[in-house]
């Protein structure tokens, strides 16, 4: 009697676990289906080459033009800028936290980095709008809403991702490597940069790819500082406004209808392809790492 009861509750729990796992899988599949079913026909109607290789985005003109090349380039530039700013700073910070930071400073610095991760993106956007944009306007001209302002904000936003993953991978490098290097008369700095950091490289790359993922997908903070103008390719400049894939969707979704609306969902499909490429790169790094 007792054993059947135990058996029964075990079965029940198993079902609960299965169901929980199923829900997350269903969510992924549902999102994919939604994107593909609504986006692909639009891409078909517009023509894939026309859609991704045309720089003219005039969905309300007659006849309309649905080219998102400018946004693809915009997302790429803004993300590259974020990486150029965020990766060196984040990496140096991770090295400092893991290897050179006195305990007393660590107790303040580590929670500060964690807090950075918890700040809502709208707050980053506000900070960018009120501080960075005016700063750029006053010092470099233009109206301040630009690739540069977006890159700076995104560069700060990806810091916690890069710092925490890099730091833990630096910490997981066996102390014996360090001892081996110091034992040969290398200084601590040489040891950290020539032995420890290379040994932690798969974690560092992982952090950079996750940072890229965050930068590519970020919407709210970017829409507040980028200016959102669709620029012809030859007018895209560091200090000029820019529109990215994500901000294209968010700025026009509220009033778009028909093929215009579908084309925004198709923009999401392109974004999705970006993310899939990043995830593939990530799993390549992980399998290569597992082999070593």
């Amino acid at each position, binding site marked *: 009697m007792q054993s059947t009861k135990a058996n029964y509750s075990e079965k029940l729990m198993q079902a609960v676990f299965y169901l929980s796992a199923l829900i997350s899988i269903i969510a992924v599949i549902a999102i994919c289906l939604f994107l593909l079913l609504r986006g692909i026909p639009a891409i078909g109607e517009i023509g894939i080459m026309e859609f991704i290789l045309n720089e003219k985005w005039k969905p309300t003109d007659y006849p309309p033009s649905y080219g998102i090349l400018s946004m693809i380039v915009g997302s790429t530039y803004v993300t590259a800028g974020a990486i150029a700013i965020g990766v060196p700073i984040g990496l140096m910070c991770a090295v400092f936290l893991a290897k050179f930071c006195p305990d007393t400073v660590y107790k303040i610095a580590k929670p500060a980095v964690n807090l950075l991760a918890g700040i809502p993106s709208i707050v980053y956007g506000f900070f960018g709008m009120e501080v960075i944009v005016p700063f750029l306007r006053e010092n470099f001209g233009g109206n301040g809403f630009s690739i540069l302002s977006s890159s700076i904000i995104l560069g700060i936003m990806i810091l916690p991702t890069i710092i925490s993953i890099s730091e833990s991978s630096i910490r997981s490098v*066996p102390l*014996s*490597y*360090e*001892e*081996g*290097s*110091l*034992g*040969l*008369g*290398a*200084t601590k700095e*040489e040891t950290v940069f*020539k*032995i420890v950091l*290379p*040994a932690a490289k798969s974690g560092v790359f992982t952090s950079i790819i996750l940072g890229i993922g965050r930068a590519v997908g970020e919407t709210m903070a970017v829409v507040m500082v980028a200016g959102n103008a669709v620029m012809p390719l030859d007018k895209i400049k560091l200090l000029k406004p820019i529109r990215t894939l994500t901000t294209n969707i968010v700025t026009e979704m509220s009033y778009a209808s028909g093929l215009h609306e579908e084309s925004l969902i198709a923009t999401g499909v392109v974004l999705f392809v970006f993310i899939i490429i990043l995830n593939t790169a990530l799993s390549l790094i992980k399998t290569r790492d597992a082999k*070593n």
Partner: protein
Amino acid sequence: MSKIKIEDVNLYYGEFQALKNINMNIKENEITAFIGPSGCGKSTLLKSLNRMNDLIEGVKINGRMLLDDVDIYKDIDASVLRKRVGMVFQKPNPFPMSIYENVAYGPKTHGIKQRSKLDDIVEQSLRAAAMWDEVKDRLKKSALGLSGGQQQRLCIARAFSVNPEVILLDEPTSALDPISTMKIEDLLVDIKKNYTIVIVTHNMQQATRISDKTGFFLHGEVVEFDDTEKLFSMPENKKTEDYITGRFG
């Protein structure tokens, strides 16, 4: 001639005194072995000879340690000291790079950039560690693919690469099989004419096989330090006798 002089050394990990009043002279071109039960301070003393203990927080040392009559804690930079006093660790710790890069790393950090010179150093060091023939065709392969014994000999080759005067070995064969152990023992005996060697070992047979002098440590003190032959055949101290005859430890 004394290469290393240890004078009235006391070492503390925080409150705990790990070494008590150590006095010892270590001679050039000899193998000196430190034996004793775990926790007796033998590894601590070894590591303080090239200041690897600096890495541990809360370590305090007083007394003097002299290398060629220069105080290693006062008058010499730690990285210069560690270049002159190399170390091989208990667990083989090759870097996660190629065999070549492992050996070339030390000379590179000390400013040697010329490819042909590095090639020479790598070959000589690997030859000195008696493994050149084993690895010469796969220098570009990862060092982590070597067997444990080969990895440890690679670490010895790596120690040779910066041309040290003293080589410290901390139980270098404890993780190895008997054949690899024998190879390393033969190697040490072979190279002692060019170096001063200090080895910590938990294996008393190893001490008798290869060392000229042996120090027996207990509770942070040197109980007895003498010619290996004499220490193992006619120990002066009762505790030494008890230990080497296997009554404790």
